[in-house]
């Protein structure tokens, strides 16, 4: 690709101050939240209007230039990692909340609006946007749709896909499509579902209409401590068997509890092997009834301590510890690697036990923080990138955890996406016919494969190589070959 021609033509679409191409200007975009992968794009563009996005995509399509969309860059799987021969399309300037409609209970927002900003804008109307990733202060709604992000309240309120009603997207052909509608469904295929979680591979999202919910009359959280992780896991199943779907049901293990406690002083019991945070919301009466029942179940499940937050301040404090768990773990180790597998809940004790065995084998500590109600694990592997070989060992250990999740009947990713990070493990979860089906879907939208190339779905060739690697028990046969 001729960089000068590209820049010159981009210059006809955008003012020069929103086309970045000097190394120092590109560096802030070299990675997303998964900083182990870095790459500089040819150029970064920061369009402000849908027309500009359309023009950029049309141009890139004509010149065969790859395009990587980027929201806030908080993704944890390298989804927004730039392409070295491509344009990074930042949606950061699409920051307007176009409309809050209390009658319809929807908000129409531009893709660069932060997740939390939607709930803040809806609050005066007594409404909020339910999916709440821990990164919600920073991550964008466009990124949330692209990843089908979840959060602690997804157990009851669903993922992004359950909470959006319409999106506008621009395809690589420069076509602006409205997907979904003002009602609860639309004619034709469910393209809204197909595009949600498509990791910027099918189209660029330029507008999102989200559903808003009434802020619950009351929310209450219970903290339960356990002297055994397996017991905590069983308690989760017992609550659900009793016919209660809590708003959130999170678990943290000892290392995570200690790290979080040190970080925010949430009042967690640091001698516990595991804690559960169980949030109940709804009408006042409903919450009271559920609290009684849940306390009883927790006690019967062998909790060593059951505490109901005494006021709103304590409730927020309990959650603060959980929400800050990642950065907290970041303080007790130079680096950490966050995994995102899901498993059927009943496999929790087995999977946690195997992870701790692997932890001993690899001599790397693991802190577990996770969405227990959904069976979505976030083992955080602690390591020090300055120790030679430790990053590689960490990645290998991480790979073993993903294998374990697939074997237990789960998935390699619950909410963080495949990106570049887990692309090889897609070969473990899907066979070649399934992967070929994914490629066919991709081609229907983007025949030349210009949107976010090399992400999310591996080529069969790559899987063949990865398969060969697996045979050698994780020892790479050709370490000099580029793995990702």
């Amino acid at each position, binding site marked *: 690709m001729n960089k000068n021609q590209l820049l010159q033509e981009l210059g006809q679409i955008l003012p020069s101050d929103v086309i970045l191409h000097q190394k120092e200007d590109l560096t802030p975009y070299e990675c997303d939240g998964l900083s182990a992968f870095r790459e500089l794009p040819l150029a970064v563009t920061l369009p402000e209007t849908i027309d500009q996005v359309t023009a950029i995509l049309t141009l890139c399509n004509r010149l065969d230039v790859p395009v990587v969309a980027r929201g806030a860059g908080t993704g944890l799987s390298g989804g927004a990692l730039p392409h070295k021969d491509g344009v990074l399309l930042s949606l950061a300037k699409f920051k307007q909340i176009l409309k809050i409609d209390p009658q319809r209970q929807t908000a129409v927002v531009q893709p660069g609006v932060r997740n939390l900003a939607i709930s803040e804008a809806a609050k005066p109307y007594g409404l909020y946007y339910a999916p709440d990733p821990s990164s919600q202060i920073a991550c964008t709604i466009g990124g949330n749709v692209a990843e089908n992000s979840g959060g602690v309240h997804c157990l009851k309120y669903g993922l992004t896909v359950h909470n959006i009603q319409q999106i506008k997207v621009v395809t690589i052909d420069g076509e602006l499509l409205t997907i979904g*509608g003002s009602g*609860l469904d639309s004619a034709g295929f469910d393209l809204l*579902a*197909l595009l*949600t979680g498509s990791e910027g591979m099918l189209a660029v999202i330029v507008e999102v209409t989200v559903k808003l919910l009434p802020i619950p009359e009351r929310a209450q959280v219970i903290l339960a401590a356990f002297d055994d992780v397996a017991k905590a896991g069983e308690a989760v*199943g017992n609550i659900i068997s009793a016919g209660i779907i809590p708003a959130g049901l999170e678990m943290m293990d000892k290392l995570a509890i200690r790290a979080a406690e040190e970080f925010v002083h949430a009042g967690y019991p640091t001698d516990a092997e595991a804690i559960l945070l169980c949030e109940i919301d709804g009408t006042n009466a409903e919450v009271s009834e559920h609290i009684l029942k849940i306390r009883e179940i927790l006690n019967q499940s062998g909790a060593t301590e059951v505490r109901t937050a005494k006021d709103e301040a304590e409730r927020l404090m309990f959650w603060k510890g959980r929400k800050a768990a990642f950065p907290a773990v970041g303080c007790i180790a130079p680096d950490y690697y966050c995994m995102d597998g899901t498993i059927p809940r009943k496999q929790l004790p087995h999977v946690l036990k195997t992870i701790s065995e692997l932890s001993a084998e690899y001599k790397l500590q693991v802190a577990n923080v996770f969405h227990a109600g959904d069976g979505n694990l976030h083992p955080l592997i602690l390591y020090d990138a300055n120790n030679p070989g430790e990053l590689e060992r960490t990645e290998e250990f991480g790979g073993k955890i993903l294998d374990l999740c697939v074997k237990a009947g789960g998935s390699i990713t619950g909410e963080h996406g495949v990106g570049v990070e887990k692309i090889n493990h897609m070969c473990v*979860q899907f066979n070649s016919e399934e992967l070929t089906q994914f490629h066919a879907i991709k081609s229907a939208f983007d025949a030349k494969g210009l949107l976010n190339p090399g992400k999310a779905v591996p080529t069969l060739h790559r899987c063949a190589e990865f398969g060969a690697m697996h045979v050698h028990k994780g020892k790479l046969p050709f370490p000099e070959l580029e793995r990702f």
Partner: protein
Amino acid sequence: MTTQDSSLDLQAHVKNAIKNNTALCIQGGNSKSFYGRTPIGQTLKINDHSGIINYEPTELVITARAGTPLKEIEYALLENNQILPFEPPHYGNNATLGGTVACNLSGPRRAAAGAARDYMLGCKVLNGKGEIISFGGEVMKNVAGYDVSRLMAGALGTLGVLLEVSLKVLPRPEAEITLTLEHNTEKALAKIIRLAQVNFPISANCYDGDRLFLRLSGTEGAVETSKKPIGGEIIETEHDIWQKIKEQQHGFFMTDQPLWRLSVAADTPPIKLEGKWLYEWNGALRWLVSSASAETIQAAAKKIGGHATRYRGHDQNHIDVFHPLSPALLNLHKKLKHAFDPHGIFNRGRMYPDF
């Protein structure tokens, strides 16, 4: 209760059809043959491929073969105090799980709980190349690969034969009552919208032109304390009102005239089209019995960002039973159809005449 795995037979059948270039009409219980256009081709029956494969109440997941009778699924769930939250209509005795999901039809609880597609966790399908492939799984969260499972919901079998489906299920509400209030249309619609903005445990609502029906579901306390502020009278006799609305056995649906289904924004004021109306889903679903022209009805729906479907009592060979797609979207649909079914074997013409 029959349990049988016929996937290999079905696969052989499809491979044969590919070889001979025969189109296939996928058929479960044939309870929803009125819905959509009349497809071209030989019947491919999937009833024999049936049985619940895995149901674990504590995991909130059920997996069954597509030919499993919907009744059987609902019965198994009820035994464990669980439900299919989207409350699917059966439209007959023989409805199957596969047909239910392929049509993505949902009942009264839809506005409160979501549609069939919202509860799709995974599926096994036979694509138009004769391959058996699986997507999603039995876990609540899974973002590996594109969401093919949800795409299958509502695709009316045009993208492949559903073989197995995994659905998320939920506990059955502890208590349930139905309230009724008399209102004119404007007042009834305004009332539903107002109620939806507050935290009432309303699991269904319907306005039939005279009366507004509201169903409250939840804990005993939640239902009890919400009754008074909402007002109206508790229905003691018409217990099956929701069943009747769901299965379209309510008097409103007893007509020879064409029935339309309009999906619009909930707060849309009464639409000025001649005919009789019945409202569900907070006003977002509107049934219209009318002999007005299709152009008039579809234009009215489109103007407010919604869409209109010829539901019953129409010529099923008509060009557009479903709302016409924009040229760009139609083009994308054709490409996706090709991606799953390159030879155009499945349910040709069931959704749109073009594929």
